[in-house]
């Protein structure tokens, strides 16, 4: 396993070479957060409760969603798109290296670096904006949250691979159409910018069947303690089902994709 640790390290160093890009990305996330914060703050100056959220809970939601964004999502996972499209995948296919573990290592290098930045940002934001901090009360809740957050990250790992694998079939422009569409769904259905409770109950039920809400919204609900035990378990089952499906699809798509790749090469 030393090889994957080495990949982690080299990935880490590589990201640091692009320091400015990383900083720009973090600045972008902070400004995004602030924009949404001001928006909801203004909403709550006139209303006490919206969709079951008070000002305090809403702001706490936004904060934990921010954390989950850095933990669950990652940018490096889409580099597979590019590698498959331009043939750099060859470098991995001729070597005794497992492409997935390689990718997992790169993914976590990206995530940990981002989380480090986040930990500094969150302290600053909380102090300057005097943000309310809400956290789980019981140890059980903490453990649940950590477990679910990690499963969400794993789910996203396979999900982003499936999106990237579109490059096998559509290498032009690195397979962007599917990525574009998926990013759009993530924007609106993952709970990234607002809790999904603002949608009417019928729609919310539908969204809860889709995988997107399990990246941010569901883990955030667990953190805030807003789910009953039954709801937590139901959510977890749906989440695991999606994870299982993604894993299965990944296996199939990878095999099929390699066959196509092995037919035409790049």
């Amino acid at each position, binding site marked *: 396993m*030393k*090889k994957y*640790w*080495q*990949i982690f390290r*080299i990935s880490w*160093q*590589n990201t640091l*070479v*692009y320091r400015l890009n990383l900083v720009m990305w973090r600045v972008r996330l902070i400004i995004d957060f602030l924009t949404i914060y001001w928006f909801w703050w203004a909403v709550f100056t006139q209303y006490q409760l919206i969709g079951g959220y008070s000002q305090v809970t809403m702001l706490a939601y936004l904060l934990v969603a921010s954390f989950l964004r850095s933990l669950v999502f990652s940018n490096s996972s889409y580099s597979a798109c590019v590698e498959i499209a331009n*043939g*750099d995948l*060859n*470098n991995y*296919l*001729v*070597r*005794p*290296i497992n492409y997935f573990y390689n990718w997992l290592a790169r993914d976590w290098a990206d995530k940990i670096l981002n989380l480090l930045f986040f930990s500094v940002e969150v302290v600053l934001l909380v102090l300057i904006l005097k943000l309310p901090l809400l956290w789980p009360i019981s140890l059980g809740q903490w453990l649940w949250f950590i477990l679910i957050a990690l499963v969400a990250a794993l789910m996203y790992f396979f999900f982003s691979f499936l999106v990237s694998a579109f490059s096998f079939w559509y290498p032009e422009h690195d397979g962007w159409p599917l990525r574009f569409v998926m990013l759009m769904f993530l924007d609106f259905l993952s709970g990234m910018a607002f809790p999904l409770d603002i949608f009417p109950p019928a729609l919310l039920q539908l969204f809860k069947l889709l995988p997107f809400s399990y990246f941010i919204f569901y883990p955030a609900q667990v953190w805030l303690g807003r789910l009953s035990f039954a709801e937590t378990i139901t959510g977890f089952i749906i989440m695991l089902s999606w994870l299982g499906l993604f894993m299965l699809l990944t296996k199939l798509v990878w095999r099929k994709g390699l*066959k196509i790749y*092995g*037919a*035409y*090469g790049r």
Partner: protein
Amino acid sequence: MAVIEVANLKKYYQVWQKEPGLTGSIKSLFKRKYEDVKAVDDVSFSIGEGELVGFIGPNGAGKTTTLKVLSGLLYPTAGQVSVLGYTPFDRKPQFQKQFSLVMGQKNQLWWDLPALDSFLLNKEIYEVPQAQFDQTLDDLVSMLDLKKVIKIQVRKLSLGQRMKCELVAALLHQPKVLFLDEPTIGLDVVMQQKIREFIRGYNQKYQATIILTSHYMDDVKELCDRVIIIDKGKIFFDGKLDEIIKKYADRKTLEVVFDRPMSKKDFSGIRAAKIKTFMPTRTVFTVKRAKVNAIAAELLKSFPVVDLNITESSIEDIIREVFTGRDLS
């Protein structure tokens, strides 16, 4: 047992014809007209340990495709392939640890980091013991004169230095088989020479089996005893280089520039020179090897020559001759 055995290898691609324009794109979603491209069409050969073989042929001949099949990147449409006793497309780790593929136009080095970092990564990937790694690295670095270069970001290196580093990265695990695809492409003449010397030296020192593809005749001349000529997916010649040169490339090309317009009639006196291309002030002749110096001297003496250039027949010329079966004598 031969290190590399290829029997009746075929690699066909199916491509579809797309008509230009928007209607073409829509049509291609529904009905596609498939066409077979025969990249490799019934190729067989076998290579023994320590051999340094050149694959030559024009662009699109099937050289790179063959290498890709031998490395396991592409699966054969038909035929048997065996390298070191393994089927390449199975991609077994034990197999992968024993060979290397270097493609002249593609990188394996991490672009923004020093080459040394990529070397260390390869060390881990191939599970090379530290002592062996240190020794091999030292060896290669001194053979290629890279001491000052390996700690600089790869993006800042010249093309030649980058190519050298790619070679080092590929050889750290002392592969028994080395596939080199166009290793000297884009390099200047001096660098090409250096790379060739290195490959020859490496082959002799480590007894590695090396297949080299190129469309530069000089690469092959300098390095390979044995050449395989490929064109349009078929092998046209497999044997010693001397034979080809003797048999097919017994003419050299003489390019002459005159300071005033000439006509074809002016050259009718020179029997041994055949005109390849004619322009009033610039003419290209092909002349039998033995006579080339004499003809050149005569041209210089009798005609207002401004510039004169003697080169080998290009690969394209040789191959063209080989196919049309025309004897160049």
